[in-house]
């Protein structure tokens, strides 16, 4: 791979990034790696681990912001038989690459975090579900797990204790919907990845019908730091309600795209202009997706918005997966929205009618608009389809996300839509090359 683009030596997650051979157990351990797992299995109880993570205020980085300690505590303690941690390494949200960045830098960080989480829920096995396209991260994880077994940090007696711990790998085969946690579990069980209806929640009936907590890569990779430094130390970072740091991926029309570790609460202006170098000379930022393609867009005039999760919620959008997509004034908003709808339509698992039919309907409408066949009718159609996709009419978040793309781009860029539909022009001269 090319040179790594992103923060090295940052405050928490990227603290050791940039050190030579960090992906090997020896280097990782020489810096302090595996000291947290050692302490956990030899000195602590599961309840103490959950308490420490609770004090940190850590929330899930997979998109839903759910408090991690709470999720773990939902797994019934006295359930007989196996319980699982399932690691969501399916990262497929357009704009998001931070889990890959973490894995390519430090696979042991995830393995250590997953093992600690497994201990915390009283389980013995963690399963990492990794998207099939991530060949290099898969190979690095496979080798790192083998190293940890050889050292005796995983296995029947990790660090000499009597608490067996193992981490296993499972490869996905190309389907965005596998990132949705219940679809992921179906896939892990060898089925077509269609989301399950809830309840029962995975904490009660998850992988192979047994109690399970599904966590994102970045969420678990944060856990060793929290155990080394203590929950309260982590909670000193971030804002009142959104603690800590996270990694954002900045892509699109910026001068220095990359993965940046930020303290939650900094503004998008700081990330896009300071860290990612801002727009190309002579161009202005027109729009950005603050948290993956599934987060409602914000116009360039709102760069001063804070990354505080509750603040974003108040604006009707979210920090989501942390993928920030930036688009400047040389690109057409209608064409960008059309591309994303094609993505959601392609990835719809087909289980709910509003999602399956609505997303394809939107694709065809966008195609007509970009072929200069739009009119008042198409504007009305898009509004109706967007409404039909949202507000809990679909089983999982994919349907909503498709609706949000239409709704939020129409709300902020009504003028561009009207230009296309009513005057049949495009101020930036976009053409639909691959309809």
């Amino acid at each position, binding site marked *: *791979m*090319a040179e790594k*683009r*992103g923060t090295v030596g940052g405050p928490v997650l990227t603290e050791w990034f940039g050190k030579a051979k960090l992906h090997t157990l020896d280097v990782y351990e020489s810096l302090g790696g595996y000291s947290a797992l050692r302490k956990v299995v030899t000195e602590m109880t599961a309840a103490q681990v959950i308490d420490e993570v609770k004090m940190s205020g850590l929330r899930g980085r997979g998109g839903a912001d759910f408090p991690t300690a709470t999720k773990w505590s939902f797994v019934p303690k006295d359930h007989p038989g*196996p319980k699982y941690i399932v690691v969501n390494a399916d990262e*497929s*949200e*357009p*704009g*998001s*690459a931070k*889990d*890959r960045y973490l894995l390519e830098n430090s696979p042991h960080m995830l393995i250590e975090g997953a093992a600690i989480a497994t201990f915390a829920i009283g389980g013995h096995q963690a399963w990492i579900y990794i998207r*099939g*396209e991530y*060949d*290099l991260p898969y190979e690095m994880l496979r080798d790192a797990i083998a190293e940890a077994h050889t050292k005796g940090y995983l296995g029947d007696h990790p660090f000499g204790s009597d608490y067996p711990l193992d981490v296993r790998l*499972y*490869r*996905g*085969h*190309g*389907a*965005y*919907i596998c990132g949705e946690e219940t679809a992921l579990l179906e*896939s892990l*069980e*060898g*089925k*077509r*990845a269609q989301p399950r209806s809830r309840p029962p929640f995975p904490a009660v009936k998850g992988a*192979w019908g*047994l109690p399970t907590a599904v966590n994102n890569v970045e969420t678990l990779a944060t856990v060793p730091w929290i155990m080394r430094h203590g929950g309260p130390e982590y909670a000193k970072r971030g804002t009142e309600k959104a603690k800590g740091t996270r990694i954002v*991926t*900045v*892509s*699109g*029309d910026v001068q220095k*795209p*990359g*993965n940046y570790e930020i303290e939650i609460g900094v503004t998008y202006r700081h990330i896009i202009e300071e860290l990612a170098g801002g727009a190309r000379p002579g161009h202005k930022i027109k729009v950005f*997706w603050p948290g993956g*393609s599934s987060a409602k867009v914000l116009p360039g005039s709102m760069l001063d918005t804070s990354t505080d999760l509750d603040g974003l919620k108040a604006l009707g959008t979210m920090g989501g997966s942390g*993928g920030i*997509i930036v688009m400047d004034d040389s*690109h057409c908003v209608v064409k*960008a929205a059309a*591309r*994303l709808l094609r*993505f959601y*339509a*392609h*990835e*719809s*698992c*087909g289980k709910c009618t509003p*999602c399956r039919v609505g997303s*394809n309907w939107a694709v065809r409408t966008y195609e007509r608009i970009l072929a200069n066949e739009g009119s008042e009718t198409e504007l009305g159609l898009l509004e109706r389809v967007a409404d039909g996709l949202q507000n809990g009419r679909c089983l999982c978040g994919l349907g909503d996300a498709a609706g949000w793309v239409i709704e939020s781009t129409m709300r902020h860029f009504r003028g561009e839509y009207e230009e296309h539909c009513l005057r049949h022009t495009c101020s930036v001269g976009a053409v639909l*090359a*691959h309809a």
Partner: protein
Amino acid sequence: MSTLSSHLLDEIKELPAKYPQPRSAVMPALDLAQEELGHLTPEAMSEVAGALQLDPGYVEGVATFYTLFHLQPVGRHRFYICTNLSCMLRGAEDIVDRVKGAIGVREPGEVSKDGLFSYEEVECLGACEYAPVCRLDHRYEVDLTRAKIDLLVNNRRLPRKHIKSRPAADVTTPRPLPGSAGPPRTRGGRQSKPAPRRPARPPKESDG
């Protein structure tokens, strides 16, 4: 006579024991079959089903759901070109055009005459900071330009030694008829049967 080699079928029979429940072995098993044959034929899928004691229709249902399983012959080197938003903003459409020209095909899924190449347009590869990107021979190629595509293609046309030892190209690879790639696969529409395939023997090529 079976399509899959007997040692592969033995390997597949060992898989279920690695998982808490045997059904989880279906994708790893299809992986092995695809690696041996290049793509999944109906016979291969039903042999996988037999080895795992599953219904052939079930196995086919799984295979058709996931984009990394190929039901049609593919080139030995496959370009999975990301055309999602971040890559589109940085010229992915141009990259697709260049790949088509360089390998001499008209549409996704079509195999080049020499059997060496095919391409697909795919959704976000999770490497948006390197846009435009593609996956080729199990690695990501990043910051793509037209010149870089030409280089990637030309390198793979050289005598094989320096890349990886694999069986020689099978130029008799059955190719899909022009236009048979059909409309883009939408998961919602995947309940339907895949297009019929030719009965000819598939190429003996490995993936890796």
